[in-house]
């Protein structure tokens, strides 16, 4: 909503404040000013001059030399413009002044253009005559300005006076951000009312004088509303003997300042009232309305209609139409029809001032693909009383501006109008909610300025009478806000909630996640974030079979595009894409992780919310291998109190991982996730040209094993005994199997068993590998004796033999 301050002042005549002051005060009382533009920006030393004489330039065919009276003195100006003649009154920028732009209408330079006296082809020129473009505006807003020429004032302009003022440019246009609850503030009157209350000045709205000749409008037109739910009120008035012409300057200037192009008196009046009251109106040429009857009804699916901009529009049965007895003549609340539009030979006009169902207008405008100023207002849900004021105001202006003759009476087809609203005046309650002690009288004064009436209740106490235009005031909290707004949010004290001191904390789930971040970051992984939705093509990139369970997805019905259409069921795409971005940018040794949800539907189509499962996903390329990744997982497990030994099953069955380099991670028999080297084909699909390793942990599965409890187990007091085992192992025997055997056979004296060497190559016979373990024994209550250790070792050696493993000597 853009409005000139001068228009606001028309209703708040005592308003006297600077632009910034206005901006700040209005924002603090709830009418947020987004910004403002001074219309006289960079317009300096510009007066109205009168051309006394014109001569040819002695040395330039295209230039003329003018003597110009600028009020009490005459200056010489050389110009290339040819639309001026002797006696014309023109804007003249004097030596040392400034204009806003060039005459070509190009975007205005920030600092404007300085004008200095000088010589043009040897002839002195002491100023410049200006076009409307040089004054920072254009012919759309000043239709009387000539094309490519100097602006010429009407004959009654006062020579020597301020030209900027005369053009109505000593003004500031404010841009407001109106909140959706304040439908009344999408109008100049609404803003003016707020301004008056903010600055504690009188609000002087226009007085709508009754209009109408002795005729009855019902003899001209009848109205039938078929869909009352979509059109709670339809008002019609008629004006005849229309005389089209330009609207008065003050109206043109106000419209121009609001960014609305003046057209003619009739169009300008409807636009003016739309701005002033926030009520769009439509003017039909009554002579085009068949049967002199308006019918408001829904369109039929597949109907087409030509709007007054000449476009054909496709309709459906949700779109409300304004029709005559034979045909549609307008799309309700959005745009009128080509077939009933006002032309230059209009004689009689039908003014429609209606209220339509806001959401319907909004949806219709969206489906038709035509959002207009009018629909933008209607979709907010306009108040039915206001429609009546607006149409009467329009008729008043028709009469006052001599645009036509107003026919008496008004056709009013209304559903039940909203009843008068009252609320009990509850000052203690308002203060209790706000934490203030605003006196009752001050509250009542605030309400009064807002047009909220009061009446005594028979049983005692006061009732507040809510004006019809305040659709947003419905409960005590609403009234408390009105008090707060004008008492001043800044004057409300700042306190902290009293009451029991509660213990603040992270939920347990979040604590585990925080720990995960700490640990994997210590292991060199940086945190990435990626979108929760992705393309269904991801599954092909990851080589998932067509019938894979993970292809059953939560699917967005209105996605931004296929690439963002399904909620991820597997967290790899984000991390692989991020690694690919880094690889492509030649970043070396990139380690990333993400903590994010996957979304698993319980049943499809979705009838209940899907499972959201937090996944810790790690990925890297560069230094490191499978075992690096494995180490990170184990660090994390230890950090969250999982002291047991995780198991790794090479039969993980993940198609996107290298078949010989993948494992599912199990803990106490429960699968927690998987890790492995990314399948070379998948790497190709993501264009990552390096070996890439990933790991995924399903955090809900992990959480059950975690604990932050720790117990001190004592530091060993007796010495340990270590034995090294160097052996030749058949290749297919896994380290995990050897360790498991050792652990089982060594019994409780075993403290640890660490692989310290593994080798395959020339010195080892084919099909075998060399492995060396250091096995450590310790008892917590005594020093071990040789017999203890040799007994255990004997069992281990037997075990090795059974596994086909030879000791190396």
């Amino acid at each position, binding site marked *: 909503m853009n409005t000139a301050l001068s228009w606001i002042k028309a209703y708040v005549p005592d308003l006297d404040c600077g632009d910034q002051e206005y901006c700040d005060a209005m924002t*603090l*009382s709830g009418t*947020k000013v987004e910004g403002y533009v001074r219309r006289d920006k960079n317009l300096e030393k510009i007066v109205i001059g009168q051309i006394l004489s014109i001569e040819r330039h002695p040395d330039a065919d295209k230039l003329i030399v003018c003597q110009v009276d600028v009020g009490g003195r005459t200056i010489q100006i050389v110009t290339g413009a040819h639309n001026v003649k002797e006696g014309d009154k023109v804007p003249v920028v004097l030596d040392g002044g400034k204009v806003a732009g060039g005459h070509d209408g190009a975007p205005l330079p920030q600092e404007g253009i300085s004008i200095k006296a000088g010589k043009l082809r040897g002839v002195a020129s002491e100023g410049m005559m200006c076009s409307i473009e040089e004054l920072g505006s254009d012919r759309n807003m000043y239709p009387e300005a000539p094309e490519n020429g100097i602006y010429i004032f009407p004959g009654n302009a006062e020579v020597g006076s301020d030209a900027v003022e005369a053009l109505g440019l000593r003004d500031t246009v404010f841009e407001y951000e109106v909140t*959706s609850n304040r439908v009344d503030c999408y109008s100049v009157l609404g803003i003016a009312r707020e301004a008056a209350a903010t600055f504690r000045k009188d609000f002087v709205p226009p007085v709508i004088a009754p209009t109408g000749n002795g005729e009855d409008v019902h003899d001209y037109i009848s109205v039938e509303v078929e869909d009352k739910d979509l059109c709670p009120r339809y008002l019609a008035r008629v004006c005849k003997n229309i005389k089209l012409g330009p609207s008065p300057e003050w109206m043109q200037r106000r419209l121009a300042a609001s960014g609305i192009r003046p057209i003619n008196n009739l169009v300008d009046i409807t636009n003016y009232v739309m701005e002033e009251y926030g009520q769009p109106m439509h003017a039909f040429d009554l002579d085009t309305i068949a049967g002199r009857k308006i019918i408001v009804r829904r369109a039929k699916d597949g109907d087409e209609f030509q709007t007054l901009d000449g476009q054909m529009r496709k309709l459906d049965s949700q779109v409300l139409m304004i029709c005559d007895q034979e045909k549609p003549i307008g799309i309700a609340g959005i745009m009128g029809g080509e077939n009933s539009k006002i032309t230059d030979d209009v004689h009689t006009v039908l003014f429609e001032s209606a209220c339509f169902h*806001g*959401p319907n207008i*909004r949806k219709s405008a969206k489906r038709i693909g035509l959002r207009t100023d009018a629909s933008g207002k209607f*979709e907010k849900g306009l108040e039915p009383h206001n429609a009546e004021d607006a149409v009467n105001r329009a008729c008043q202006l028709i009469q006052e501006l001599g645009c036509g003759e107003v026919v008496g009476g008004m056709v009013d087809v209304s559903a039940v109008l909203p009843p008068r609203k009252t609320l009990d005046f509850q000052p203690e309650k308002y203060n*209790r909610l*706000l*934490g*203030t002690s605003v006196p009752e009288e001050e509250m009542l004064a605030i309400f009064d300025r807002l047009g909220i009436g009061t009446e005594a209740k028979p049983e005692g106490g006061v009732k507040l009478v809510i004006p019809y235009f305040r659709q947003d005031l419905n*409960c005590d*909290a609403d009234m*408390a*806000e009105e008090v*707060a707004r004008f008492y001043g*949010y800044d004057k*409300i*004290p*700042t*306190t*902290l*909630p009293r*009451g029991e*001191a*509660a213990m*603040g*904390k992270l*939920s347990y789930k*979040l604590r585990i996640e*925080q720990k995960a971040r700490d640990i*994997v970051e*210590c*292991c060199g992984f*940086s945190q*990435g*974030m990626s*979108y*929760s*939705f992705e393309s269904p093509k991801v599954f092909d990139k990851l080589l998932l079979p067509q019938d894979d369970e993970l292809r059953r997805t*939560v*699917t*967005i019905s*209105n996605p*931004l595009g296929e690439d963002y259409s399904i*909620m991820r069921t597997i967290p790899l795409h984000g991390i692989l894409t*991020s690694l690919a*971005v*880094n690889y492509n*940018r030649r970043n070396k040794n990139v*380690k*990333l992780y993400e903590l*994010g*949800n996957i*979304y698993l539907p319980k049943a499809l189509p*979705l009838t209940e*919310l*899907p499972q*959201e499962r937090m996944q810790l996903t790690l990925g890297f390329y560069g230094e490191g291998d499978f075992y690096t990744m494995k180490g990170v997982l184990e660090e994390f497990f230890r950090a969250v109190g999982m002291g047991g030994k995780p198991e790794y099953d090479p039969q993980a069955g993940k198609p996107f991982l290298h078949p010989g380099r993948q494992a599912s991670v199990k803990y106490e028999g429960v699968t927690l996730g998987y890790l492995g080297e990314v399948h070379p084909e998948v790497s190709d699909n993501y264009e990552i040209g390096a070996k890439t390793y990933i790991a995924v942990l399903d955090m809900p599965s992990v959480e059950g094993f975690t604990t932050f409890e720790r117990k001190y187990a004592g530091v060993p007091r007796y010495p340990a005994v270590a034995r090294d085992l160097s052996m030749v192992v058949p290749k297919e025997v896994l380290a995990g199997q050897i360790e498991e055997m050792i652990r089982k056979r060594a019994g409780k004296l075993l403290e640890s068993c660490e692989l310290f060497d593994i080798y395959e190559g020339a010195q080892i016979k084919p099909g075998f590998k060399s492995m060396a373990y250091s096995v450590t024994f310790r008892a917590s209550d005594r020093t071990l004796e040789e017999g203890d250790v040799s007994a255990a070792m004997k069992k281990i050696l037997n075990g090795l033999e059974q596994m086909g493993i030879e000791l190396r000597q």
Partner: protein
Amino acid sequence: MKARLDQIRKQVAEQIRNCDTTEKLNEMKVGVLGKKGELTNLLKSLKDYAPEERPQIGQLVNETRAEIEKLIEEHRVNMEKTLREAKMKAEVIDVTLPAKKTELGHRHPNTIVLEEVERIFIGMGYEVVEGPEVEKDYYNFEALNIPADHPAKDEQDTFYITGDILLRTQTSGAQIHEMEKGKLPIRMLAPGRVFRSDEVDATHSPCFHQIEGLVIDRDITFADLKGTLAEFARELFGEQTKVKFRPHHFPFTEPSAEMDVSCFKCGGSGCRFCKGSGWIEILGCGMVHPHVLEMSHIDPEVYTGFAFGVGLERITLLKYEIDDMRLLYENDIRFLKQF
């Protein structure tokens, strides 16, 4: 005898000076003071003297012995010091050679800011919880006083899964989940991911994060809301931070406000950052609408409360002066390493 002792002393002093290793010094010490050493021998010969002379001579011998021990000890200390110094001199390293790095990973800037916000509110007794990202229409809209056909529903450009299930457009639904638990009072912070169908550009992302706060108790006032959020702003942006509350509208709070903080770049004098205004808009807040309380079975005549919602990315971008939101989701390691 005395002369002999003097001679030994001199002789030994000379020998000590010539010792340049601990071993030699020990050897020499044994030679002089040991069981077969000269001084020991002298003491052994005491019996050759007259009994009345013996104490005097014995004392002389012991004095000399002590003196020699002292000399040896002094020399040992000096010598060890010299040796250590020489060793250290040989061990000089080039401290400007590159560090051996244990390369740590980096937290995402969003998480750094989030954890900071969590820390502040945990300190004020808030419990951090989460709500679902795929949500029922009821929790995202209806229970927040945004009924069907409400313009706010369209404004938020919702992604729908089915007619009734959607991707939450705001974390405010977490308020409802918390209230429905039926446990009062409430001090809740609910951060999380939200979704709106905005095309990706420098200032928009279809996927971003909010942090929701909710306090419900007896006698909670708008003044409490102001005090709490002012405290939060000072903790997050610095002690000198000023706050400004402007009236605003949200369907689920009344009265509602937006909070601005004094620009933390220029301190309020106006700069490129705050677009010259000296203020930066940070969050929306308000007193929980009585109708919202009622819908969640809390009696608005007994309990009141306030709620607020912060855009996490907005603060991250402002705090670190990041000029393009896409950087947050691209995960270029050169970006992440800066935090």
